[in-house]
Each structure stands twice: as C-alpha cells, then as structure tokens.
C-alpha cells in the first residue's frame, strides 16, 4: 500500500512550502484594510489544519520508513509498480481507445489481481499480523501467492489477442 504514500509524499513537500509562503505573506503584507476578525480566525484555522495535515503525512512517512521490514518494502514497491501500470492502462482506455476491449481487460485485471494478491501476501507475512493468520506461515503465504497468481494469469492468458 506504499504507492499512495509515496505519491502523496512527493506532492506533499512542495504545497507545504507554498502554504507556508502564503501564510507568511499574508501575515506580513496585510494589504486589505477590511478583514473581519472571524475571517482571520478562519484563515488561521485553515493554516493550522494544513500544517497538521502535512505534519501527519510526514509522521506517517517517517514511521513507515522506520518500522517496516525490508521485505515488505520490496512488496510495496512491486505494488506501486502495478498501480502505476494499471493507472496508465486505464487512462489510455479512457482517453485514447478501448478498442481491443478484451486485451485492455486482460491487462488491467492482471495488474489489479496481482496487486491484491501482493497486498494479501504483504499482510500475511507482516510480523504485526501474526495472530491474525495463525495457520499461515510465510512459506505457506508465498505458496498461496504463487498458486493465486497462476490461476489469475491462466485466465488473463485467455484474454490475449
């Protein structure tokens, strides 16, 4: 589930800077003579939630970097890749053509299916989830993953062409 975080983080830095700049400019210049106190308060509250939002994101990112084991990060990068591929296909279908619809369907379903299978594997091998999956060892989880992927791609194969 990393991809969203990664994406949001990359956008996160720049707007926060922009917001800070905006807030500073608002506080220093004060060109408008008529600003009611309520408006000021509103603006401040917006700024503070903005700051809270981005600091939360930062906290999330650093916590993710600190606490996630390496193998999970590897899975996360696979998921990110799958998600980007899926989005690219979907955008292509929406904007250009869906002409070989079965081919699009095969490609898109493959990414979605592989994404959820990877997410399943990720949650099964996550040490934090040990008591949620008492019967599933990491080896079993990987075998399940392979089995599920085989079935999935067997059906995807039928959509080629």
């Amino acid at each position, binding site marked *: 589930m990393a991809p969203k975080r990664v994406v949001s983080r990359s956008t996160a830095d720049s707007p926060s800077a922009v917001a800070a700049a905006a807030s500073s400019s608002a506080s220093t210049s004060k060109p408008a003579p008529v600003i009611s106190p309520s408006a000021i308060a509103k603006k401040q509250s917006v700024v503070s939630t903005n700051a809270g939002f981005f600091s*939360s994101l930062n*906290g*999330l990112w650093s916590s993710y970097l600190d606490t996630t084991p390496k193998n999970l990060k590897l899975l996360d990068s696979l998921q990110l890749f799958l998600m980007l591929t899926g989005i690219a296909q979907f955008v292509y279908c929406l904007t250009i053509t869906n002409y070989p619809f079965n081919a699009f369907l095969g490609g898109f379903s493959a990414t979605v299916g592989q994404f*959820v*299978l990877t997410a*399943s594997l990720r949650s*099964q091998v996550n040490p934090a989830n040990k008591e949620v*999956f008492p019967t599933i060892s990491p080896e079993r*989880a990987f075998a399940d993953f392979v089995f599920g992927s085989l079935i999935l791609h067997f059906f995807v194969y039928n959509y080629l062409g």
Partner: protein
Amino acid sequence: MVNYAYQPPGYSAATSATMSAFLRTIILCLIAAAAMASREFAVVRFESIIHEFDPWFNFRATRVLAKDGFYEFWNWFDPTAWYPLGRVVGGTLYPGLMVTSGLIWKALHTLSIPVDIREVCVQLAPLFSGLTAFATYLFAREVGNGASKEATGLWAALFIGIAPGYISRSVAGSYDNEAIAIFILMSTFYLWLKAVKTGSVAWGGVTALFYFYMVAAWGGYAFITNMLPLHVFVLLCMGRYTSRLYVAYSSFYAIGTLASMQVPFVGFLPLLTSEHMSSLGVFGLLQIVAFVQLVRSHIPAKQFKVLLRAALAVGALLAFGALWFMTKSGKIAPWTGRFYSLWDTGYARIHLPLVSSVSEHQPTAWPSFYFDLQFLVYLFPAGVYICFRELRDEHVFVIIYSVLASYFAGVMVRLMLTLTPVVCVSGAVAISSIFETYLDPVVPEPPTPVGAIVADTPISDAEALSTPSSKKGKKAASSGTSSPTPRKKRSFVPGIFGLDSRVAPLLAFTMMAGLFVLHCTWVTSTAYSSPSVVLASRNQDGSQNIIDDFREAYYWLRQNTKEDAKIMSWWDYGYQIAGFADRTTLVDNNTWNNTHIAMVGKTMSVSEEVAYPILRQHDVDYVLVIFGGLLGFSGDDINKFLWMVRISEGIWPEEVSEQKYFTSRGEYKVDGDATETMKNSLMYKMSYYRFAELYGGGPAQDRVRQQIIPNTPIQLDTLEEAFTSENWIVRIYAVKKEDPLGRDHKSANAFANGKRKKRVKTAGKKKRSSA
C-alpha cells in the same frame, strides 16, 4: 470426579476418535446412497428417460458435444430452432452441465465402459445430489458449534439428501442446470467460509474456481455474486474487518470476476450490469478500508483523524463524480426485467407477460413450504436463533443467507431450491444442539454439595434436600420420602439431567425425524417423479396405465414428415419437438425473442383468415396443439391460451385484445357461451375440431374445464387434421398450400363440399363422389 447421568462407553480417547471417524464415513456414504436411491423412482416406475422440457435441450446439446466434440459444440449454430432466425447455441447457453456429463461420458469410455450418453444424462442429477450431501456436510460442519460440529454436518447432509425442495429438481432424468448447480453453490459457500476463517489465498482462489464453475453452469450464479459481498459488507458494518477478510474477498473477486467473463453467455456483463455492481463496490470499499487500517497502524490517532477527514472529502468528491459520469454516459446498464420482478411481484405480470407466464416464476403458495420442507420449516427459525447466540463470521453468513433466500423463495417458486440448503443447515444446527444437550452424559457438579438436585444418582443427597421450587423436581419428589424443608436460596445448576426427561425430547425428535423421512419419500414418489413426457394413470383395478401420447405424436412427426418440415407450436414444446422429432421449430423454451413468441401467440389467437398468411410467411408446415379435454390433462394449450393472448397483445394491442376472450360476465368459457372471438380463434378450432363427434350426439364434455362443447361442427378451411394421438392429447394439423386454381381456401373448400350449388351443382357432386 465427574458425575454421569448414564455410563458412557469406556473407550480411550484415541479409540473413540477412530471409531467416530469410521462411523462418520459410513454414515456419509449411506446418506449419499440414500439421496441417490430416492431419486430413482422415476426410472423404476417409468424408464430411463429425460424429463420435461428444458432437459431435452440440454440432452440434445450434450449429444452434439459427445458426438462432434467440444469445438463443434462451442461453435454450434442451430438453424432448426427459432426458424427462420436460428440460434447461436454455443454462445447462448450455460455449458457447465453439458461439459460435466460429457467429461463423465468420456472418462467412462476411456475405462472401456460403453455407456450411452443418455444414461449419463439421466443419472447425473442423482449422482450430484450425493455430492451435494457431502458439500453440505462440509458447510454445516463449519457452521456447527463446538462439540456438535460433526453432528451438525451429518444432520445437514441427511436433510439435504432427502428434502423434497431439492429433490423436486434433481430426480433421475431431470437433466437441468439446477441438478449440478446446488452442489456447486454449497461447495462455493463452504470454500468461502474456509477462506474467511483462514485468510488464505489458496482457499480464496479455489472459491473463485468454483464460482467460475457455477457461472458456467447456472444463471443463478448472481446469487453468489451478491451473497458474498453482502456478507463482507455486513461484517465491515459490524466492525469485524480483519486482514483475513481482505485476503479472502480480494483474491476471490479478482480471480472470480475475470474467470466469469470467460463464459460467452455472460461475457462482459459483470462490468456492465447493476446486478454485479455490488461486488465491485465492496471490492473497492475493502481496498480503502485495508489502506486506512494500514495507515492507522503507523501513526497516532490524532494525526490519523486529520488524514482521514481529508481523504474522505476527496473520496466522496471522486465517487460522486464517477457516478455522475457513469450515469451520464450510460455506462451502467439499468437493472434487467427479471431482476425487477424479484422485488416487485406485480412487475412481471404487467411488463413481462412472457416471464410471468412460466409457472415456476409464480409466487410460492404457503403450503408448498411445508410440502417441500416439512418439519425443517419450524426447526429453521430455531437454528437461525442459535446462530445469533454465538454470531461468529460464518453464523452471520448463514443469517444473511436465510433472510435473502426466504424472501426470494416467497417471490418465485423455483427459488425454493436456493432456500432448501440453508433450511437444512440451520435445521441441522437446531436438531444437533438438541441432541447434544440431551445426550451429553456429564452432570455438572453443583457449587455446594447440598445444592445437587440430580435425581437418579445421589440418593443420599436427594433426601437431604427437596426441590419444590425447581421445575425438574418431579424426579426428586418421586424418590422423596423426605420432608420438604423450605430454603430460600440454594445454589444449583439449572438444566435437565434426569434420564426420563432426557429420553422424552429425544424420542420426540427421533420420531419427527422418522416422519420426515416418510414424508420425503412419499412426496418424492407421488409428486416429483413424473417425467411429464410420459403420463401415468390408475385403472379401476389399481393397475397402472401409461399414457404415451407425446412420444407417439413426436415419432409420428419424425417418421411421416419431411426432414425440413417446420412445426409451429407454443414455445413450451419447442425443445421436445427438436429433441424427439428432430424437426425445425419456430419458438422454443429458450424464450429469448419475445416478438417471435408473440407472433406465434397471435397466430393462435386470431381467426383462420388472419392466421393463414402468417403461417405461410413463416413456411409453417404443421401446427401442433396440446389438448387435454378428452382425458382431463390440465396442462394443455387452452389453459395456457390466455398467456398467448396476453403476450401477443403486448406487441399488437390493436389486433388482439384479452377482453374479447372473456364472456360478458368476465368468465373464461369454451362452451356455448364462449365469445365469437374465442370460437373463431385458431387455437379453439384446432383443439375442438371434431371433438363433439366423439360423443355421437351426446353432450361433449371437456373434462378439464367441465364444460359442454356445442355440437355445431367446426369448419377448418386452411388446415387439415394430420394426426391425433390416442388420447387426443397431441393434435397435429397440416397447413394447406395455396390453392392451385388461385381461389381462397374458404371458397375452394365450400366448392369441394358442394355447398355453393347455385351454378356448379354437377361439378360439386362429381367431386364428392370421387372423394
């Protein structure tokens, strides 16, 4: 020291485990055998024959599969159905059934067992009902509580094995999709419960494979498509999200949906129609919930709240925009009519007379619940109640299933079939918990020694106390010479522990289970084992009389008509004509083209002069009607006639009007009071043509409608009677070709009969003498 109400057999734990496993296997095999045997009534009474209507098509398709191979079957275009349109059979059927029996046939032949494909088809339903018993055993075992798990499974297997609600569609010869569908349904549900419990992709993947099999086998797969997401959704609402749920549903949906689109008849529907949208929606929801859970595990609650709020706002905006876009661009098809008729029982009658005309689409009459389920009907709520007590995930599933299926079974008779398994399972939960309670030999030790009210074991205690306040005090009192010493509070364990009070309910329920077996056997043998192609009646001396008019007439068609002859009949008989007589039909039970059916309905409803051009336009050579008036066979065409009128009125309201077929008092009559429109309709004429002559001037009574048919001879100009079966059930008329002299048939006929004698008297006489 454990007190026992009776001495349990003193085996070691290992021995008793082995013994019970052995017994379980034996019992399951016996149940499967009983399930198969009770479905053989039809074969024993009549013969090994395919039943009813739809099975005939399935059988014909299977024959193509067995004879010509899979590719021929897959690409089969049938020009003899829906003349002149034809039917792309490979793309408009659920191939699961045919492929299953084709594989069995192939396997048997590989083993050098030369069995006919017909025998495989006839015996497929009993075979799969045995497997259903096994699948239900597995399912109910997951649902059962604690120590009575295995017992629950066995009871459920027993119930589903012989419950008439399921037998009604799976007797030998009833070669229809439902025959294998219930087995797949129960297997899919079992695998689903297993997937939810373990959270393993393997179980989820196998669930998806069985779902694929279900989609390939039966249109009722939509039940699973909506049942599983609903289960997930309810669990989410109950705050029971776990990663196991995510794994189970995501792997099932991703693989299952992709797989379901492999079936040509289903195609891309799972992406387009609203019936499938709920599963997609729950899939998306589950992704979001999983992501939110992951985020929450990484940051403190306060920051999480901020993030959640922002995400919710963006998400709501996106969802609204997507919905607006989809509706605007018409990407999501509206609900289909058959689906509407599930929610509004009046819908089909008004908008879809064709759907509503099928008898199995009628709302269920309440006695049929008891008829089909007997004492399970009142065990059912008890079982659902027991599910509420523990309310594990699988219990939630059973509860949702029972609510949905009860509703659907009330709306449509044929959906009784989906209700039966859950009734069997929750009935099994109830009865196994009863037996578990009363058979458990352990008598709990009361907290204080004086509190023991156990009746039969500790006599010494019994004299020390009295139990006037206890409900179960009778036994103690019976032993009691002891004087009642009133106490305000005694600690005792509530429960029923005396042997006699144990035996009473056990006996009662055993007896009811026995009666259930009797009832099931009786219902199966009397109500559900008739092939309906062959009828049976009892002679006065009690011997059986087989009425074989259908086959007689179909074989007449096969042997006496040209190979490319086109037969028109009401759509009910289309598959049978194609299967038995191998002739081209205009409409059949597939009912995909309402207009074409309405055209046949119109031809039957209007007068001869109007009908003849239509008949000629469609190259009809023979018209076949079913007439039960002589024998009292109530499923005949005159009784179905109003549906023909209604369906054709839907297309040609200005030419056909239902009102005109009723008398001024609003009655549907065929006797002297019948309206002119009725009497002139082709159906009336064909049914009663020369009927009165049978009675030689006496009152000609129609035994179905109990009315006297008028004596005036019916004149048919454009048709001539070609064949009438022994008991007059099937009547076949040949359509005359255009008159070679260019006259219309009425005048030609009149000429032939010498009616118009004014100028051509001699010619007419000559004709008659020569004829």
